[in-house]
């Protein structure tokens, strides 16, 4: 008798007085709802692709982050061609080399395509050697040229390939989001859980601290804390330092939600019903409360990632977050300190584009998950 499962589908069917609906488990219903969210599906695809790229960025990029091409300083993105200037079709795509001229008025380098130099693109080709995951040496790149050079996103003011740097940056920026959220989750669930479990004075104390932390403007405090990171720290330590700082102001919100949701769930009719039917304490928690709870946590976590990514970007942009030679999207954006960059070398803003796309994707995915997880939802979200 205690094996009561909450199955919303027949309830819906009954409400509408119908016989056309088949029985569907909550999980299937959630999947149906999620699939209907086409944007969330696209976002999930985009994020999976980005994380794959971030994982294998050594292989996917044609160069290393600090490889400099002195023939291409602040050079614009190249276009990939299939037809040469005579109009002949080449099955193997190719790029043209740069033709550089210094503008006599502005003293700026101006690049154009040099149709004399054709560099065919080879796939799974041997190129610069790199250390995959700092574990083993390899030389095979997804694509590169045998002669000449290829800069799909252009180069920066030191002649480094932006394509390479953007995807190496993805590894740092996108992992900071996930690691930061995991830390947040850990602290949030732990502290929220303890507060909820202990109750009384501990609960009230934690509530107060949470209130205080939530009322602080995060960025100035992030700034203060990251400025306090010792200069002599290694990049790895700075990375973790920044991640911890970012999650330091994230956990209170989560802890409060965890606690609130837990208390609210405890009062839900179906939990009460399960308890009255004689289900044990653990069974009530794991069989009845956890399912509603995990979906809620997953959604909250997904929606928390963008904040972390934006935080890292902002701090690094200001020069108090990650520091070169570490490559992150924020570090890359440091090159865009003034609007002249947009006018002169707009391709240096490409990392910003990736930030925006990733953040949008996380938001859409979170929305889709939330709608899918809540069987009674009416299209709005509940915070």
């Amino acid at each position: 008798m205690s094996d009561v499962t909450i199955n919303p589908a027949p309830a819906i069917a009954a409400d509408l007085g119908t016989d056309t609906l088949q029985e569907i488990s909550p999980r299937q219903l959630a999947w149906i709802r999620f699939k209907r969210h086409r944007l969330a599906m696209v976002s999930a695809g985009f994020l999976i692709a980005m994380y794959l790229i971030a994982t294998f960025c050594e292989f996917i990029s044609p160069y290393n982050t600090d490889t400099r091409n002195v023939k291409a300083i602040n050079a614009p993105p190249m276009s990939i061609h299939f037809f040469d200037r005579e109009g002949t079709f080449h099955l193997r795509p190719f790029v043209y080399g740069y033709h550089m001229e210094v503008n006599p008025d502005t003293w700026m380098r101006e690049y154009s395509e040099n149709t004399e130099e054709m560099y065919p693109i080879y796939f799974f080709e041997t190129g610069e050697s790199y250390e995959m995951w700092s574990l083993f040496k390899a030389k095979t790149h997804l694509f590169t040229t045998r002669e000449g050079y290829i800069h799909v996103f252009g180069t920066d003011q030191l002649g480094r390939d932006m394509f390479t740097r953007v995807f190496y940056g993805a590894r740092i920026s996108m992992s900071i989001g996930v690691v930061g959220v995991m830390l947040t989750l850990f602290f949030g669930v732990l502290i929220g859980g303890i507060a909820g479990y202990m109750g009384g004075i501990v609960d009230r104390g934690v509530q107060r601290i949470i209130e205080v932390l939530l009322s602080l403007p995060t960025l100035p405090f992030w700034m203060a804390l990251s400025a306090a990171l010792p200069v002599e720290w290694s990049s790895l330590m700075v990375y973790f330092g920044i991640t911890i700082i970012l999650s330091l102001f994230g956990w209170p919100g989560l802890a409060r939600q965890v606690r609130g949701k837990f208390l609210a769930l405890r009062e839900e009719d179906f939990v009460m019903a399960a308890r009255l039917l004689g289900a044990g304490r653990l069974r009530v928690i794991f069989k009845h409360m956890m399912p509603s709870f995990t979906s809620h946590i997953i959604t909250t976590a997904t929606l928390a990632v963008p904040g972390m990514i934006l935080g890292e970007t902002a701090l690094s942009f200001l020069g108090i977050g990650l520091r070169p030679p570490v490559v992150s999207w924020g570090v890359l954006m440091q090159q865009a300190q003034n609007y002249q960059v947009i006018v002169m070398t707009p391709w240096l803003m490409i990392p910003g584009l990736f930030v925006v796309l990733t953040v949008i994707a996380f938001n859409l995915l979170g929305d889709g998950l939330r709608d899918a997880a809540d069987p009674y939802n009416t299209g709005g979200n509940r915070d």
Partner: protein
Amino acid sequence: MVDNLLEIRDLAVEFGTDIGTTYALREVSFDVPRGKVTAIVGESGSGKSVTANCIMRLIQSPGRITGGQIHFSPNDVTAYDIAALPDKDPRLLDLRGGSVSMVFQEPMTALSPVYTVGNQVAEAILCHRKVSKEEALEEAADMLRLVGIDDVGRRIHQYPFEFSGGMRQRVVIAMALVCHPQLLICDEPTTALDVTIQAEILTLIRDLQKDLNNSVLFITHDLGVVAQMADQVVVMYQGRVLEVGSVRQVLKTPVHPYTRGLLAAIPGLATKGERLATIASVVGDADLITPHPLVTLADGRQVSLPSDQLAALELANG
């Protein structure tokens, strides 16, 4: 004047959902006579509330009325089909709360928590008649007194959360009656209330109906309430009408197997110690899914049955 205030014919409502279209109402037909209480009875999901919402045109997307008519004749001269009115027809605003009003199931959430009770009752008057705010409040107070609220002078300035569930339902009833509607729809008005308060509210509705001589459409799943309240009964199942007749006919000599099932499932003193009958155990393998047209029998009641069973019935009745 037409005898029936409301004549519903072949009403159909569909809901488009994620996983296909649901037919909430199919060929629903029945009449609501003047000055009488008509009850719609059925289990959850039988379409009784949807029917009520159709009469006030409160069905909203993804639901829509796909066919049928709701003929409404408030007086000798006016008569129109509610189902055919365009969404923005001014007659709809006049109808809602003016000539037809509704009492809902959940008194706890049927009132906005941020306005005083007086404000919300008086608003119903202000929506339909050109009177000053003070006059409206005055009338609202009279109506609140009529539904049995004490100390109205003070209570009228209080918020809904300061009222108990039973008191709130009285407020909702006052709000519904304050414009003297010809039809009061009560959608399971006592389901959410304590048993003792249920009886009070039922008595109140019945007494007010006698005093004001309006029609009442009473929606419930409780056959005991039907016996106490109604003159006429409509039995619904899965969006269709199975049986229509007077209370005496339907409750004493039900014709449709489903109605018999419903009656058998009422726990009583006589059945103490026995297992309660379920619908399935009484109805057996009778096919409730296939629709059959409503046929009027010799004694005036209507029933929806397959032709062979109908023939057997006519034979038995002579």
